[in-house]
């Protein structure tokens, strides 16, 4: 079994990557503008519904039922898809899924496929695997086109090119056969349209992800904004869908809940512009061959963790990214994974499954635990709870010999007894002699991590408890 590509090979740890991103003022400007706008819009879209909290609870409980009975629903989905003329494949990991898809594409005797925007295929590194097999995968979502042609990595789940502005996009599009005439959004979209139309009309095979898969009916659902997904899902002869196993829903009517939660949380729309659903194959209409690849890739091991499993409720709306004060400043690439932001900080390390890896282990710490993510999550994933839970797992993986673990043990020993604590208070108050003019502006490491940018408080000679004892004791 190969390395799980959910985190990018060779990525620096979060603090190191963040340091570089913070220095990029263009990036910070782009991100601040984009996240502030979408934040405000989401708030108004959600405020329109009087039963938003009930909807969130409904979404949470449907997903929890799915996770508790995953085996049952998946087998039901497989039977329904097969009944309707589709073929179902099971993939244990990225390598297996990529192999299945490559074989299916090669069986159609083609070396180019069109793709619907999909997180699952990005997670398994499908485009790279197809390229190794001599197949060119063409992204068709406008933002994915920008990322792909820019030989770049995505920085947001929903808006993967959020870090780019239009001048940068014009430069990237210059390599198209008919490049844009200006950086006006209409000109950029027109250039992309001309480039993509040709691809849609010539492709024999399309590859998609799935937002939902309905067990009872075998229906797959993809929601999108541009209609480019609809082109891929209807024009080519063969359609291959890669779906994470947790995306299954029990009943058709469950969509009522999620088709309200998802667009309002992600694009702040009441309804997304394009909702495509299909059940197996319909003779004479749309793709005549349909393959569904059900992907595990770390999901069942995530499911085994009682606290961490709630991350599998995620419907990839990215509301948590848009409200996150850390994401807003560092951008998505700093997380070193296809899943950035707060959800990425809990999902990527769990899917990767190796907390001994320095990069993955740094992700649960990429948060001030402010809780803004939990507040907006449409399926009520308690992200701060999972973050602290994963931090405990990181600490366990690193062992007791790290300087931090030893400092924490010492602190716990001090707090374990009042006399030791009072002695430490007295010792701490000696730092007041380091102060100049009532200001403590330089401490030795690790205190320097504080005083590099902030003054430290001057610890007074008398603690509160000493005062209390003197006056009230």
């Amino acid at each position, binding site marked *: 079994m190969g390395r799980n590509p959910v985190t990018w090979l060779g990525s620096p740890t979060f*603090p190191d990557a963040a340091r570089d991103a913070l220095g990029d003022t263009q990036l910070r400007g782009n991100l601040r503008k984009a996240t502030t706008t979408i934040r405000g819009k989401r708030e108004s879209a959600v405020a329109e519904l009087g039963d938003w909290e009930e909807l969130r609870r409904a979404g949470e409980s449907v997903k929890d039922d799915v996770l508790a009975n995953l085996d049952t629903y998946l087998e039901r989905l497989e039977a329904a898809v097969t009944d309707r003329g589709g073929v179902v494949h099971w993939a244990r990991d990225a390598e297996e899924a990529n192999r299945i898809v490559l074989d299916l594409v090669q069986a159609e005797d083609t070396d180019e496929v069109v793709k619907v925007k999909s997180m699952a295929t990005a997670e398994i590194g499908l485009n790279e695997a197809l390229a190794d097999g001599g197949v060119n995968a063409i992204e068709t979502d406008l933002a994915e086109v920008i990322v792909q042609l820019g030989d770049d990595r995505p920085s947001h789940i929903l808006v993967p090119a959020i870090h780019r502005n239009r001048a940068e996009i014009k430069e990237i599009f210059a390599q198209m056969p008919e490049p844009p005439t200006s950086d006006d959004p209409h000109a950029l979209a027109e250039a992309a349209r001309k480039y993509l139309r040709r691809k849609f009309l010539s492709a024999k095979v399309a590859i998609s992800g799935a937002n939902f898969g309905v067990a009872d009916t075998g229906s797959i659902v993809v929601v999108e904004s541009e209609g480019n997904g609809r082109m891929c899902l209807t024009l080519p002869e063969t359609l291959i869908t890669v779906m994470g196993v947790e995306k299954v829903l029990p009943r058709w009517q469950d969509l009522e809940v999620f088709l309200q939660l998802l667009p309002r949380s992600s694009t702040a729309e009441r309804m997304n512009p394009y909702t495509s659903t299909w059940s197996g194959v319909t003779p004479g209409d749309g793709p005549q061959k349909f393959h569904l690849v059900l992907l595990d890739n770390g999901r069942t091991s995530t499911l085994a963790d009682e606290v961490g499993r709630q991350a599998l409720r995620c419907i990839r709306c990215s509301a948590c990214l848009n409200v996150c004060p850390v994401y807003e400043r560092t951008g998505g690439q700093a997380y070193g994974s296809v899943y950035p932001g707060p959800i990425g900080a809990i999902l990527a390390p769990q899917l990767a499954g190796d907390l001994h890896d320095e990069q993955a282990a740094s992700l649960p710490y990429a948060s*001030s635990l402010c809780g803004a993510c939990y507040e907006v999550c449409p399926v009520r994933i308690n992200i701060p709870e999972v973050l*602290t839970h994963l931090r405990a797992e990181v600490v366990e993986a690193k062992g007791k010999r790290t300087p931090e673990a030893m400092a*924490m043990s010492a602190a*716990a020993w001090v707090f374990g007894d009042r006399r030791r*604590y009072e002695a430490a208070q007295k010792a701490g108050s000696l730092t007041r002699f380091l102060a100049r003019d009532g200001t403590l502006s330089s401490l030795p490491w690790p205190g320097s991590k*504080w005083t590099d940018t902030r003054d430290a*408080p001057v610890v007074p000679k008398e603690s*509160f408890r000493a005062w209390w004892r003197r006056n009230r004791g």
Partner: protein
Amino acid sequence: MSGPRVALFPTCLTDTVYPETAKAVVRLLERLGCDVDFPLDQTCCGQMHFNTGYAEHARPMARAYADVFDSYDHVVAPSGSCAGMVRENHPNLCAASPAATRTYELSEFLVDVLGVVDVGAHFPHRVTYHPTCHSLRMLGVGDKPLRLLRAVSGLELVALPQAEQCCGFGGTFALKNAETSTAMLADKMRCVQDTGAQVVTAGDNSCLMQIGGGLSRMRAGVRTVHLAEILASTQEEPWVATP
């Protein structure tokens, strides 16, 4: 007849670094008729350990907290994050204790338990209020601190832009991700300065340590003062800046 028997849990940070805040809570609660005690056996709620991934170290601290505070009617902490740690996480670390459910952040205790909004305070300064994340999202204190501040005579309250954005403290986050923490702080300070306030207040000394540390470094001339100190200040006994 004496009022409710209240134990003060100033938190280890305030006990050690910001004793004036704890004295202010005592003064304020006694003025409102409470019988205040400070059990000397208390130390720390274990939040730093728990939030950094050392839950096993936090467990005995949670147990000790229950032992110290279980016999009181109420426990009051001038900190949203420590009160949140106790109420939300202590029951998962050790058996549910009366102390955990009876622990209140100061503004909650004043408004919900004592039922007062006007505490008779006087504070003639231009003030802006930063709602700290854990008081806002973990405890849900809502506008209670603002209602208390609006009732303070002489106080001019100015709204803080993007108030609900984190100041970047986040406990050990401020050290582990110091650069990101500082970038968040820079935006918070800009918002504070845009208000033209002389004082920025909050219900948590940890967040005020971050904001104040930044303001002091840039010689911004804006002071951080804990909510308790504003509410304790009166015409007769006005708040005095500590050196």
